Structure formats: C-alpha cells, structure tokens
C-alpha cells in the first residue's frame, strides 16, 4: 500500500475549489491586514489592528519538563568515527564499476574499522547537516532507558528524547509548584514547567541494536520484522538503512551486513562525481522513486557513508550529511 498515494487521493484541498488570491475573500483579508497599517500623512506610524492571536500563540508555547532518569558517568566521550573525505592514502584500491561494487567495498571498509559495543548507560552522538546551513546534534540512549537529547539550530531548539524504564516514563506537566496549569488556553507568558509529574507507558527505543544480524542473509527478515521494511521496495529499504546509519550505532559486522544486503537489491545504480548536501564529493549508489531520485553517498577514498541526498521531481534537493558519530557518556556532552 502506497500511503502517500492514498493520502493524495483523499487530499481535502483537492476535493473543493479554493478561492485564489484575487478572490473577494482573499482581497478582504488583505485589506484587513494592510488597510489599518497604511501610514497617514504627517505620521509614518504603522498600526496593526487585527491578528493579535499569533502573538498569544507564540507566548503560549509552553513546554514540557522531563523527568530525570539515571545518567551515565561523567568522563569524556569516546570518538568512534568522523566521517568525511579522506585526504590520505590507505584507501581500498578497487576499480568500482557498479553500485554493487560500491556497497561491497563499503562493507569491506566497514569491517576494517574497529568497533566495540557501547555500554548501556552511554549515548550515541550524531551530527547531521541538512545542506541549508542547519546542523542537528543528537544524543540517543544506547539501551533506550535514559533521556537523550536533540539539538537543532534555528527553529526547533532542544528536544529531550525520553528514556523508558520498565515500560514507563515520567513527564512533568506545565504548571506552578507541582500543580497543573489551569489558566486560559492562550496565556500571555510561557507557563513554567513546574507542574505535577505523571507516568505514562512506553517502549524502550535503543540506539544500539545488539540483536541486529551480522550476516546479509539474515538481514531482510530482521529489517521486515523490526523496522517494517517493505523488502520489495528499494526506496523503502535504502531509506531505512540510510536512516539507521545516520542515527544508530552499528557494529562493523552489522554495518557490513547491511551494505551486503543492500547490494542484493535490484534497481540501484552507480552515481559518480556526486556531492552530499554539504558539498563533500563522493561516489554514490542511487535509485529512483515516484519521479524523484536518491543517492547514498560514500567517501571515494574510505568508502565510509557521507550521507543521503534526494532530488525531487522539481529538482528540489534534500537529505542529510553525517558529519560525526561518536559515543558519549552523557547526553549533551561533546565528543
């Protein structure tokens, strides 16, 4: 089932004629906004009469205080990988001709890197660039039991990824002195996160998957079972695998097995002289879907994954570049 197609077929905006910007309704709104703002002679002051609610909405913006779960130790983080173009020798000497060869070479390269299982109390740190100048840093709990962190530049700010212990997690509601906020829906100032703590059910979501197979043959069943991957859809498979590379910590053998499994998928093409969204040059393995294309991009020297770049049917570029991955002892700790 193609969910997007079903959604588009039921798009409420395409089931009724919508008045354009030259309609009476649109002109009315425009006049409402502009009319009262137009300066009068002898005064350049601009006044807006309508639309105070947005300010109230912004002021509402109450957040969520999250309970503190036991954290890790306070020693320095351990860097485990710094993806990026290599400028030194020692690269695999392979005449790459096909997408399969790129993936097989990436698998061999993965096996040559050291890698040990992180401790359950540690965090998987990733730094991903989106090509638009934004960089997101993420600290995800290795076993899913501790509070992680996501930090995005610009709009979005900091997000806590709640840990889950014994199927439960705690959150703190907005309010005052342990009592819930009961004021108006649009308060003039942000409500402090000082309300009562409540418990809700949850499932731990680890960033390290010790149960992931280390052979390509076992990978399809595992991905279908745990990630809901549609194995006959190269786009689904490649995107899920690419996403895992960008957010989960994989052991070298798991990484290699994923590449080897991906290499068996039909519909992959070799893409030479590509760049990731931050401009790093690489060699790519691409595929197309619904008029769009996507490429997994590898460092042409080390065959470590640099990221994924997508190109929409109108040429719009998206994707992410993995700039750094490491293990840290605390969420928020720089490796």
């Amino acid at each position, binding site marked *: 089932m193609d969910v997007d197609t079903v959604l588009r077929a039921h798009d409420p905006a395409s089931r*009724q004629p919508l008045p354009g910007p030259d309609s009476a309704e649109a002109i009315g*709104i425009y006049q409402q*906004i502009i009319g009262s703002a137009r300066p009068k002679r002898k005064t350049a002051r601009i006044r807006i009469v309508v639309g105070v609610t947005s300010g109230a909405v912004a002021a509402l913006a109450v957040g969520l205080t999250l309970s503190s779960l036991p954290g890790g130790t306070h020693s320095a983080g351990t860097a485990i990988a710094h993806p990026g173009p290599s400028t030194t020798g020692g690269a695999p000497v392979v005449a790459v001709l096909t997408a399969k060869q790129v993936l097989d070479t990436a698998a061999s390269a993965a096996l040559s890197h050291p890698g040990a299982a992180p401790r359950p109390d540690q965090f998987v740190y990733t730094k991903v660039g989106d090509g638009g100048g934004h960089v997101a840093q993420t600290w995800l709990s290795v076993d899913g039991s501790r509070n992680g962190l996501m930090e995005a530049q610009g709009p979005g700010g900091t997000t806590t990824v709640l840990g889950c212990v014994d199927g439960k997690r705690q959150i703190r509601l907005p309010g005052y002195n342990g009592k819930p906020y009961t004021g108006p829906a649009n308060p003039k100032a942000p409500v402090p996160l000082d309300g009562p703590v409540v418990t809700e059910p949850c499932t731990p979501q680890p960033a390290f998957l010790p149960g992931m197979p280390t052979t390509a043959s076992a990978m399809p069943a595992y991905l279908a079972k745990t990630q809901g991957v549609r194995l006959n859809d190269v786009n689904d498979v490649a995107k899920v695998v690419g996403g895992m590379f960008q957010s989960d910590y994989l052991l070298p053998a798991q990484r290699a097995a994923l590449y080897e499994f991906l290499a068996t998928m039909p519909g992959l093409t070799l893409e030479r002289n590509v760049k990731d969204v931050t401009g790093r040059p690489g060699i790519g393995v691409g595929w197309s879907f619904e008029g769009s294309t996507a490429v997994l991009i590898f460092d042409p020297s080390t065959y470590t994954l640099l990221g994924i770049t997508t190109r929409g049917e109108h040429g719009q570029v998206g994707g992410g570049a993995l700039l750094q991955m490491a293990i840290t002892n605390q969420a928020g700790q720089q490796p």
Partner: protein
Amino acid sequence: MNQHVRTDEREEQQQVRADDGYAQRERRFRQLYEEHYLHIQAYAVRRLDERADVADVVAEVFTTAWRRLDDVPPAAEARLWLYGVARRVLAGHRRGKERFGRLIARIEASHVAAPQPALGDTDGRLTRALRQVPPAEREALLLVAWEQLSYAEAAQVLGCSPNAIGIRVHRARSRVREAFGEPPPEHPVRETPMPAHTGGNHGR
C-alpha cells in the same frame, strides 16, 4: 518665514521617505500574499474540520507575516516559514476552540499540535488510521504527502533534521499501513522524541 518653509520641506521629505519605505514593504507583502495565499489556505483546509475557520487562520498567518516581514526569508523558503507560522496558529486555534483536557493539552503543547486532519474519505478509515499516528509523525507525513515538501523542507518547517523527518515519515507510513491491516513491525522503531520546550519559536 524661510525657517518655516525649510521645516515644512524637511517634514515633507521625511514623509516621502516614510511613504517610500511603506510602499516597498507593502509591495513585498503583496508579492508574498499572492504567491503563497493558496498554499496556506490549502494547508488550513487540510487540517481544519470547519471551512469557516480557514479564513481566520489564513488571516492570522499573513498578519504575522506582515508584522514580521523582515524575518520572512526570501523565495521558496518563505513558504516554509509561513507553514511554520500556520502550524502554530492552528495549534492555538485548536486549543482555544476545543478546550482540550490537561492530558491532551500537554501532548499538544509538547508537539506544538498537529491538529486532526479533515479528510474526504467517506468511510473514515483513513482518518481513523491517521489518528493512530502520533502528531509529530503525522505532521511530517502530511507535509510530505500533501504539501509535497522534501524531507529537508519539512525539516525546516518542523525545526528538526531531515533524517528525523525521514524516520518520522517512515514510521507514520508504517502505522497507517498497519491500521489498514498490513503486517506491523514486531518491535516499534524509535518513537518521535518530545520537545523539552517549545517556547516562542518554531517547535520541533
């Protein structure tokens, strides 16, 4: 007398400059309005149950744009910025209108609410399926499917990384498929995180 003339001229010049500044500002706003009116209207239509509320939401979004015209990014990014505003306006609209209970209000606040979509599915199956998708994942999916944004663009609207969008969209699609009777994954993939704060700016 001459002094008065000079003062009048100075005031006149100041007025001309003020008028020019205003005209420039209005020109830019008009362009923004004409270019993105339909997009924002469609965004609101897709997420509101009542057609009558759409004009209010559109008016509020563009009023914010007028007030913060200097903050509106140029070209294609302007639409993403407006979607971000629309999302918050809708969150406030829904909160104010339906008086959610404390629990729901908390969820809405934590996700900077993605309101329930108004769908044209006659048997309500898709609507029910979408209601089973957590708001942050659902909004990511709808931005991609309905607003036809790329992951990078949706990430800009929701203030997170494109990778996070990819994961949310994938998860949302899986949940919808599951609701339609397709086999679910045995172990759910990592949940969409909840924001530690959403104060004042674009929430995640």
